[in-house]
């Protein structure tokens, strides 16, 4: 954001100073917000850049699977809602890139790192949207899982990220409800074929959605530090459990069956227990070998390359207009 030069000042020297580190941690422990120009450990900055950028990329890539259905939405109402939702995702990407830029990186660099494969986006967007029910599922489950992940981020120790998340969470609530309404329409008011389509969508998306929360706590590499820095408030497994507990009754209301024969309610703990997640699939998709990875990256690369001349022309036009205005002012002054 503003005065980014301050961010870079003496960073190397300061990083060695453990007194700074201790003071930083005590501020975080006291639930104080860390702001762009405050001193922060280099690793904290890097973790945030990685996480916020990945989050921003996910919002932008997330527009693709849903955009796929805009022209084929079944009614004008659904089309308007889907357009608004996809536009929101673009907006969320913009808020998040803006938050990342307060850490001294540029949006263009982050986009380049995505296109070079150095940064990632959420694995969930590598799955295809094969039927209209998938649009319902994305709103209900994908956005539902995102909300579960994102509500604790509203209290993240880094101010600009926390503030961006507050805006995003408000808007995600519309996304989830419009998705669930699509599901209700298909499942409760729909024909048997429509209900079967909804069940098929749930079958395909359920496991990938559970993987959205990331590796199990015993395999997660970033959790400890992120928790200490209050970037993260709950572990992956905690959030996954909260999501499942919230979602199962919603699925039951729809009359759908979750594709997990091991799923059962534990009356003692009050939680829904789930079967083993296939982490080899998760690793494969994250590594680039999901159903749509290549297509998504190609679409992003094409959009970036095909838009280059527009970005250049807009800059040139603005410069020309500025030069003309300055010349006119000079003549008027003479």
């Amino acid at each position, binding site marked *: *954001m*503003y005065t980014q030069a301050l961010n870079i000042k003496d960073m190397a020297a300061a990083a060695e100073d453990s007194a700074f580190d201790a003071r930083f941690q005590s501020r975080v422990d006291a639930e104080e917000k860390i702001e762009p120009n405050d001193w922060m450990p280099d690793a904290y900055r890097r973790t945030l850049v990685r996480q916020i950028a990945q989050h921003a990329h996910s919002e932008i890539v997330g527009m693709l699977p849903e955009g796929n259905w805009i022209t084929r939405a079944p009614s004008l109402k659904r089309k308007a809602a889907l357009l608004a939702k996809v536009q929101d995702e673009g*907006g969320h990407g*913009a*808020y998040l890139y*803006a938050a990342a*830029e307060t850490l001294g990186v540029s949006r263009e660099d982050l986009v380049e790192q995505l296109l070079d494969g150095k940064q990632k986006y959420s694995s969930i967007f590598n799955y295809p949207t094969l039927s209209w029910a998938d649009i319902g599922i994305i709103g209900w489950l994908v956005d539902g899982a995102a909300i579960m992940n994102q509500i604790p981020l509203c209290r993240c120790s880094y101010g600009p990220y926390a503030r961006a998340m507050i*805006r995003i969470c408000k*808007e995600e609530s519309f996304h989830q409800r419009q998705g669930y309404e699509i599901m209700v329409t298909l499942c409760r008011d729909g024909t048997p074929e429509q209900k079967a389509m909804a069940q098929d969508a749930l079958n395909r998306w359920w496991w990938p959605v559970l993987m959205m929360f990331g590796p199990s706590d015993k395999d997660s590499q970033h959790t400890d530090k992120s928790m200490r820095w209050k970037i993260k408030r709950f572990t992956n497994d905690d959030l996954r459990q909260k999501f499942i507990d919230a979602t199962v009754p919603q699925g039951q209301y729809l009359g759908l069956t979750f594709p997990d024969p091991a799923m059962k309610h534990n009356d003692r703990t009050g939680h829904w227990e789930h079967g083993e997640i296939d982490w080899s699939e998760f690793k494969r998709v994250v590594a680039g070998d999901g159903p749509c990875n290549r297509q998504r990256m190609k679409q992003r690369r094409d959009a970036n390359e095909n838009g280059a001349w527009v970005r250049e022309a807009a800059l040139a036009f603005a410069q020309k207009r500025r030069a003309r205005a300055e010349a006119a002012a000079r003549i008027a002054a003479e």
Partner: protein
Amino acid sequence: MTEKNWPLWEVFIRSRTGLAHRHVGSVHAVDAEMALQNARDVYTRRGEGLSLWVVPSSAIVASDPADKDLMFEPTASKIYRHPTFYDVPDEVGHM
């Protein structure tokens, strides 16, 4: 291809009449007009505001957090600047 980045603008929104404009985030744009349009699209999709300001980020001068004590600490000892520093007799009532 060496592509020049679009300049950064800070966005401020007045959410209701009578309130001050408040910083909400930033946008990239080639000029002020485009910055206003982008700020509208990015930050006011749900009636968040009645008025928008965009300011080139490079035009903002900020105090350095490292000078926080130097800047703001001196006022902490000046408690006589607050109304509660002064005693008013109970008989006089609320003042």
